[in-house]
């Protein structure tokens, strides 16, 4: 269970969000500038809430009243940033391996192969991020987060730079992760269709406030493409 009840001031913008999501995948939905990335940064521990509580499966990550703020590196999260943030000095192979090394996990060639094949980045392994296309970068970033064996996945529009075909391949994989591995996720997307497939609960954000919370029914109705 993911419990979030925080407030945070960022310049003139403020986030005041409170929800408790039981589901395995919490979808964050909202217009550009609604505060989705800010909220997810707080869950990651990169942004400290001014006030409030964040806990996951009963374990407190943040509690301003009790001065608890678990540092980022101990949260065991996998975060796919909106802007990829690959390490420019490491080739794709080492980017993918980074989380495993830092967490001192045993090598798992099978898992690695599965992720690499799924994302179709096998032929990029020796390249550095500077020479990847936009979509390739995001795929590698997704792979990097998945391979760090996180306890919680934070996905900030992980598929928005990808083509339909690719999305159709990756979404089912994420659904399997949700159902089989049971890794909880927070998934940010503008794409209602994506959220409908993946999210078990939806948080609607608008100007930093939660305006709706519930199942897929809170999403705007599907429109058929023009």
């Amino acid at each position, binding site marked *: 269970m993911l419990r979030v009840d925080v407030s945070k001031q960022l310049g003139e913008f403020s986030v005041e969000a409170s929800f408790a999501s039981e589901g395995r995948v919490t979808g964050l939905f909202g217009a550009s500038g609604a505060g989705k990335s800010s909220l997810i940064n707080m869950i990651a521990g990169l942004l400290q809430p001014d006030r409030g509580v964040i806990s996951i499966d009963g374990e407190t990550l943040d509690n301003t009243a009790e001065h608890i703020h678990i540092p980022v*590196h101990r949260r065991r999260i996998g975060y796919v940033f909106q802007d990829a943030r690959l390490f*420019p000095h490491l080739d794709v192979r080492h980017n993918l391996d980074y989380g495993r090394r830092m967490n001192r996990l045993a090598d798992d060639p099978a898992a690695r192969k599965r992720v690499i094949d799924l994302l179709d980045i096998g032929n990029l392994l020796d390249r550095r991020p500077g*020479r990847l296309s936009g979509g390739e970068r995001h795929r590698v970033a997704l792979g990097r987060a998945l391979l760090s064996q996180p306890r919680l996945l934070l996905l900030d529009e992980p598929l928005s730079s990808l083509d339909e075909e690719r999305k159709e391949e990756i979404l089912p994989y994420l659904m399997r992760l949700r159902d089989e591995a049971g890794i909880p996720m927070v998934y940010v997307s503008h794409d209602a269709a994506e959220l409908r497939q993946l999210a078990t609960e939806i948080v609607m954000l608008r100007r930093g406030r939660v305006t709706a919370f519930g199942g897929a029914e809170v999403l705007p109705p599907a429109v058929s493409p023009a």
Partner: protein
Amino acid sequence: MFDISPTEWTAIQLSLRVATVATLVATPLGIAVAWLLARREFWGKSVVDAIIHLPLVLPPVVTGYLLLLTFGRRGLVGTWLADHLGLVFAFRWTGAALACGIMSFPLLVRPIRLSIEAVDQRLEQAAGTLGATPWRVFLSVTLPLALPGVLGGMVLGFAKAIGEFGATITFVSNIPGETQTISSAIYSLIQTPDGDTAALRLVVVSVLIAMAALIASEWFAQRATQRLHGN
């Protein structure tokens, strides 16, 4: 012209040893200080910054005297180090290395600091989310990305260490085989009537050493930049 005398050879070797040791010992310290100045706010930060720059601002002779008074045989720190660690600086090549290290420290720190400041903190955050402790973030992300600055600082520092003699000669004197570096040898020769040819010979040698250091550092830097901005 290039019949270098044994004393001169000794001076050349000593210079290389002194400058190399000074640079290698000062670099980790310089990185630590640069990191503190770049990434931490603390009380007295500008004082630390000012102290680091002192050797640049003061005439080298003054720095040399201060070293003599502090690390000399009768100096407070000097006696303590000699008694407790057996580390003697006074009139030894180690003292020359200390003097060079201190004189080149500001030149070392500034470029490193700038490079660390330029590292995108969002990448450090990303490393944190992947489980890297702050220390490992520093080693695996910040430091490699700041490498051009580290190399740049090391080159400046090394070049300065080769050229330094004001503080060195004042602190540990000009004893052939022990503390006479190329630069102090050049200085002695320049002070001697008709020492000019010999001085010129040594000047050429220092220039060659510095060029070698520069080219080596450019080569490393090039590789580092390539690693950062391409395959």
